[in-house]
């Protein structure tokens, strides 16, 4: 099995590679759709701005690769901004996004004592029993860095939620596409277990 990691100038991917090495996976890191199209599953990371990320994806033809991958029923994991831009749109730069799953992204409101970005460790409450969260204790903490949060439409199965002033969705799954808003690759043993579960997931 070979894992593809999408490289589209969306932050540093060394930690994703280190996590995969630690888990004994084989991977290819690339921004070229032809190189990635024959992998078995994709990790779609992201740091930074939603509108800029969409531009970078489109200019490389990676938006179409993601659409095709999901259509062919192969597993895809979106992380951080990768979890946001699989939805229809984002308030960040009024970006029109991939529309693989219905929903949008909104800015965290913040407030007294609530700094934005939401940066640090927060507990995640798993909302369903899902293969992807097998073996991870309920309310485990994960490492977040983000200013926008995902709002998938009603009916999209939610994997987990957290709160930062308001409660919000931090993971959802539809068909072969799953997402985490936090960084599982930087979230200790609980995070590594989530990555390992994704590598073994047969939706």
């Amino acid at each position, binding site marked *: 099995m070979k894992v593809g990691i999408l490289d589209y100038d969306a*932050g*540093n991917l*060394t*930690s994703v590679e*280190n*996590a995969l*090495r*630690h888990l004994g996976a084989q991977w290819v890191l690339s921004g070229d759709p032809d190189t990635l199209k024959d992998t078995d599953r994709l990790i779609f990371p992201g*740091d*930074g701005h939603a509108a800029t990320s969409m531009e970078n994806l489109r200019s490389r033809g990676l938006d179409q690769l993601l659409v095709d991958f999901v259509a062919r029923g192969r597993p895809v994991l979106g992380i951080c901004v990768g979890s946001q831009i699989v939805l229809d749109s984002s308030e960040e730069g009024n970006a029109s996004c991939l529309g693989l799953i219905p929903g949008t992204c909104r800015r965290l409101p*913040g407030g007294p*004592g*609530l*700094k*934005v*970005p*939401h*940066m*640090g*460790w*927060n*507990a995640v409450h798993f909302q369903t029993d899902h293969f992807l969260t097998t073996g991870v204790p309920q309310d485990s*903490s994960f*490492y*977040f*860095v983000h200013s926008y949060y995902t709002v998938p439409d009603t009916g999209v199965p939610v994997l987990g939620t957290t*709160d*930062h002033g308001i409660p919000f969705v931090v993971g959802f799954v539809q068909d072969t596409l799953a997402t985490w808003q936090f960084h599982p*690759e*930087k*979230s*200790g*043993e609980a*995070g*590594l277990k989530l990555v390992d579960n994704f590598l073994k997931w047969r939706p």
Partner: protein
Amino acid sequence: MLQKRVIVCLDVKEGRTTKGIKFENNVDLGDPVEMAEAYYRQGVDELVFYDITASSEKRGIMIDVVRRVAERIFIPFCVGGGLATAQDIKAVILAGAEKVSLNSQAVKNPDLIRQGARLYGSQSIVLGMDALADPSMPSGYRVVINGGRTKTDLDALAWARQAHELGAGEIVLNSIDADGTKAGYELPLTKLISEALPIPVVASGGAGTPEHLRAVLQEGKADAALVASMVHYGTYSLSQIKDYLAGHGVAVRR
């Protein structure tokens, strides 16, 4: 609810962890990679490595340390000390660090903060600031550099605001008065900066007991607290610190 972070700081000199009081009388504490892994297993939330290697020829050693740490621990960590150019920042980030800390070099060249934030985003650029109580300054605190040896003309609060505007995403705030005393963090300074800035503030300098962390996280409004000697010498374990904090109403990762 976002948890308060307990961060362990390791001073690294030519590839070895060292600890001195007020940057003097350094003693060898061990291999930073092995220490990082041990703290990771004990549940530390984040690590900071300060490269205090004096000679520039030996700086490459630190990149190797960063690479080996990144392969073995899966939590965010920050690297600081002597990073003077965008190229220096890039080398540390590509070796696997989540964040870089810019201190004296950012005072000398504030544009370094902007360059770093443009390259890797604000979440990766930390302002390291050493401050000294000084009633002649508007905020009551003066920025000092070179490990506290050199006074600048900068007011601590004004410099923190400027660094945030340039793109710093977090501030590690070290009190030179409290550093190495084990008598507690400088609470008024921490509260001042944390309440004035919309980005997280990490309190540094003065930790001696778990109660000191509780005070700076609650009264001092810090988002995280840095510890060094109180855990390096085995006076307290991370779980003792976190148990104490949790028992006093501080949300921490368990």
